[in-house]
C-alpha cells in the first residue's frame, strides 16, 4: 500500500521528468479528443471515431514493415493515412450505395482492422523484429510514451486545438445546418474534410496512450457528458476538453502505478464515471433534477386540485367559512391520501388554507386562488370548443392538464380572445372572484 502512495505522490508531484512527459501528453491528448469529439458527437457521427481508430491499425503495421523499427513518427503517419482512407471509404459507401452510415462504419471498421491484424500477425510470424511495442497500440500504454513521442504528440495536439478555436464558427454551422452552410457558399465539403482529418489526427496521437480499440470513447463520452451541463457550444467544447484531460491524466496515473496494465480501459472507466455523474446530476438536464421537477410539479397539481375541490363546494352559496374534515376533502377528489395530506400541509404553509382540528377551510387568498384554477380550466374548455370545434364532452381531461400550466399572460390572452365570457361550454359560470377585487 505504501508503494501505491509513493508512486502516486511521485506521479502527481511531477518530480520525474518522465512523469511530466506522460502527464503533459495525456492531458493534451484528452483535451484535443474531447474538443474535436464535441463536433463529431453533435453531427451524430460519434462512431466514426471508432471506425477511424480501427482502420488506423493496418497503417501502424505497414509503417512498421517499411521502416523496420518502432519509430513513433512513422507509425503516426501510417496510422493517419490509413485512418483517413477509412474515412474516405465510409463516405464512398454511403454515397454510392443504399447502405446506411451504420453499415458503412461497421464494414470499414472490421475490414481495415482485419487487414491490420493480418499485417501484424505477418510481422510476428516472419519475425521481422520485436513487436512487443506494437501490441500496446491495441489497448494503449501511456507509460511507454517517450520524450520524443510526447513532443510530437503535443505539437499535433496544440495545432489541432488552435484549429478548433480558429474554425469554431464554421464548424458550428457545418454541424448545425450543412444545407444552409452550402447555400451561403461555405465550402462544406472542404470543411467536413478538414474536420474529419483533424479527428483522424486526434485518434492517431491517442493510439499509443489509449489504444485503437477504446480511443473512440475519448471522442464520444466527454462530449456527451459536457452537453449535459450547458446549452452553449463554446462552453461545451471547453468542458469536454477538460473532462478529456482529466481522464487522460488519471489514465496516465494508472499506467504509472502498474506499467503492465493497459491504459485505455482505465481512461474509459474514468470518463464514463464523469459521464454518469453528468447525466444524473447536471442541473436542468440531469435525470435527478428532472425527477425533482416532476415531483414538484405533481405536488403543485395536487394542491391545485384540493383548492379547486374546496372552492367548488362553497361556490353555490358563495360561502367558504365552514371547515371541512380531511375525510370529506379526501372524498372530493381521487388522489392518494398521502399526496392529499402533503398538499394540505403545503397549502396551509402558503396561507391558502386554515386548519382547526383536522378540518380545513379556504382563507381569502385561498378562495381567490381556487377561483383562478377553475377559471383557467373553464376558459380553456371554452377555447377548445370554440376554436378547435371539439365537442364539449371531449375537453374536460385536456383542460385538467392545461389549467396547471397556463400563465397569467396566457390567461389574459384567453380572456381577450373569448371576450370575457361568463359561461363555459357546460353552462357553468366562470368565476371571477378576486379578479374584480384586484381590478
Amino acid at each position, binding site marked *: 500500500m505504501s508503494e501505491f502512495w509513493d508512486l502516486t505522490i511521485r506521479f502527481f508531484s511531477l518530480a520525474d521528468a518522465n512523469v511530466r512527459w506522460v502527464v503533459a501528453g495525456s492531458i493534451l491528448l484528452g483535451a484535443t479528443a474531447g474538443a474535436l469529439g464535441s463536433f463529431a458527437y453533435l453531427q*451524430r457521427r*460519434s462512431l466514426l471515431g471508432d471506425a477511424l481508430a480501427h482502420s488506423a491499425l493496418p497503417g501502424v503495421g505497414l509503417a512498421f514493415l517499411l521502416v523496420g523499427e518502432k519509430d513513433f513518427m512513422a507509425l503516426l503517419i501510417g496510422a493517419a493515412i490509413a485512418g483517413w482512407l477509412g474515412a474516405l471509404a465510409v463516405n464512398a459507401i454511403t454515397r*454510392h450505395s443504399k447502405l446506411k452510415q*451504420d*453499415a458503412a462504419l*461497421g464494414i470499414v471498421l472490421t475490414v481495415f482492422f482485419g*487487414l491490420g*491484424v*493480418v499485417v501484424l500477425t505477418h510481422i510476428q510470424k516472419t519475425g521481422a523484429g520485436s513487436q512487443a511495442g506494437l501490441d500496446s497500440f491495441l489497448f494503449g500504454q501511456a507509460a511507454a510514451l517517450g520524450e520524443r513521442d510526447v513532443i510530437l504528440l503535443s505539437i499535433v495536439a496544440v495545432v489541432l486545438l488552435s484549429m478548433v478555436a480558429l474554425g469554431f464558427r464554421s464548424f458550428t454551422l457545418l454541424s448545425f445546418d450543412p444545407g444552409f452552410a452550402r447555400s451561403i457558399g461555405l465550402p462544406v465539403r472542404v470543411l467536413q474534410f478538414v474536420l474529419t482529418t483533424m479527428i483522424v489526427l486526434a485518434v492517431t496521437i491517442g493510439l499509443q496512450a489509449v489504444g485503437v480499440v477504446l480511443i473512440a*470513447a475519448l471522442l464520444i463520452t466527454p462530449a456527451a457528458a459536457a452537453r449535459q451541463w450547458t446549452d452553449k457550444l463554446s462552453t461545451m467544447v471547453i468542458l469536454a476538453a477538460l473532462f478529456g484531460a482529466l481522464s487522460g491524466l488519471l489514465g496516465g496515473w494508472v499506467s504509472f502505478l502498474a506499467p503492465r496494465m493497459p491504459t485505455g480501459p482505465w481512461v474509459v472507466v474514468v470518463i464514463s464515471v464523469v459521464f454518469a455523474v453528468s447525466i444524473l446530476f447536471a442541473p436542468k438536464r440531469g435525470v435527478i433534477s428532472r425527477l425533482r421537477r416532476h415531483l414538484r410539479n405533481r405536488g403543485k397539481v395536487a394542491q391545485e386540485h384540493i383548492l379547486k375541490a374546496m372552492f367548488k363546494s362553497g361556490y353555490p352559496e358563495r360561502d367558504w367559512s365552514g371547515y371541512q374534515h380531511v375525510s370529506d376533502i379526501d372524498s372530493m377528489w381521487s388522489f392518494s391520501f398521502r399526496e392529499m395530506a402533503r398538499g394540505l400541509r403545503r397549502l396551509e404553509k402558503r396561507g391558502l388554507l386554515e386548519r382547526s382540528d383536522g378540518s380545513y377551510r379556504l382563507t381569502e387568498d385561498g378562495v381567490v386562488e381556487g377561483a383562478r384554477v377553475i377559471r383557467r380550466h373553464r376558459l380553456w374548455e371554452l377555447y377548445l370548443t370554440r376554436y378547435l370545434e371539439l365537442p364539449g364532452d371531449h375537453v374536460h381531461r385536456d383542460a385538467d392538464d392545461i389549467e396547471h400550466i397556463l400563465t397569467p399572460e396566457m390567461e389574459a390572452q384567453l380572456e381577450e380572445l373569448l371576450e370575457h365570457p361568463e359561461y363555459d361550454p357546460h353552462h357553468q359560470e366562470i368565476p371571477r372572484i378576486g379578479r374584480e377585487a384586484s381590478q
Partner: protein
Amino acid sequence: MSPDLWVLITGILAAVSCGVIGSFLVLRQNAMLGDAISHSVLPGLVLAFLITASRDVLPMVIGAAVFGVATAYLTELLDRTRHVYRDGALGIVFTLLFAVGVILIAIYADQIDLDQDCVLYGEIAYTPWDVAVIGGQSYGPRAVWILGGVLIANVVFILTFYKQLKICSFDPAMARAVGINERFWHYALMTMVSLTVVAAFESVGAILVVAMLIVPGATAYLLTDRLSVMLVLSAVAGVISAVGGFYAANWLDASIAGSMAVVAGVLLAGVLIGVVIGRRLAARKAVAAAAAAMGITRM
C-alpha cells in the same frame, strides 16, 4: 480429419451463423449495435470464467446474453432521456463494458485462460486441438460443436419467426399497427446476436465476429431487396469469405480471422463497384425513359 479442414469448417460455421443473423442488423440499421455487442459481451465472458472457474458453455452463454441485452437496453435508456444521441449512447455503453472486461482480464490474468489480444484476433488456428471429450471419447473440436449448435439455433429462430422478423425489420410502424411487439423482437434478436457472438468469440475472436455480422449481410443487401434471397446470399458471402480467407492466410502466413475479414471486405468492394456501375447505366436509361414518358403524356 486434417486439422486444416477443421479450421475451415469452424470458419465457415462462424461466418454463416453470424452472416444470417447479421443480415437483420444491417436491414434494421443496427450494424453498429452488432459491433457494440461483440465488444460488450466480454465482461460477461470473464465473469462466467471467474465464477465457475471453467469454460463450460452454459455460464458463458448466460453471461454473454446478459451483457448483450444490457448493451441494447442501456443504449435505449440513455436514448430515452432525450439528452444523449443514440449513436453516442451506444459508443459510451460498449466502450465502458469492453474496458471493464479488459481490466478484469488484466487483473485476473493468471486465473483466466484468455489474453487481451486473443480476445481480438481469436485463435481459430488452435481450435482443432481443443476437442470435446465426453466419457474419454473424443468427438472433434469443441468450437465446431458450439458453432454448429448456434447455427442451427439461428436458422430455427429465423425460420420460426420469419414473418415477425421480416415485418419488424422492414416496417416497424406497420408491425406495431398489426399488434406485433416490435420491442420484444428487437430484444429477441439482440439475444440471438449475443449468443452467436459468444459462441464465435472465443474460438475466432471479436474481429471476425463483427466482420461476419456486418459485411456478408451488407454484401447481400446490395444485391437484393428480398429478405429470403438476402439471407441466402449472406450465407454464400460468408462461405466465400471463410474459404478465401483461409487460403489467403496460409499464403500470407498471417492471422486466419483477419484474412477472412479482409476477403469479406474485398468481396463487398467488388459487389459495390459492380452495383454502382450498373446504377450509372440505369440512371442514364431513366432519363431517356423520362423523356419518352413525357412525350407520351404531354398534351
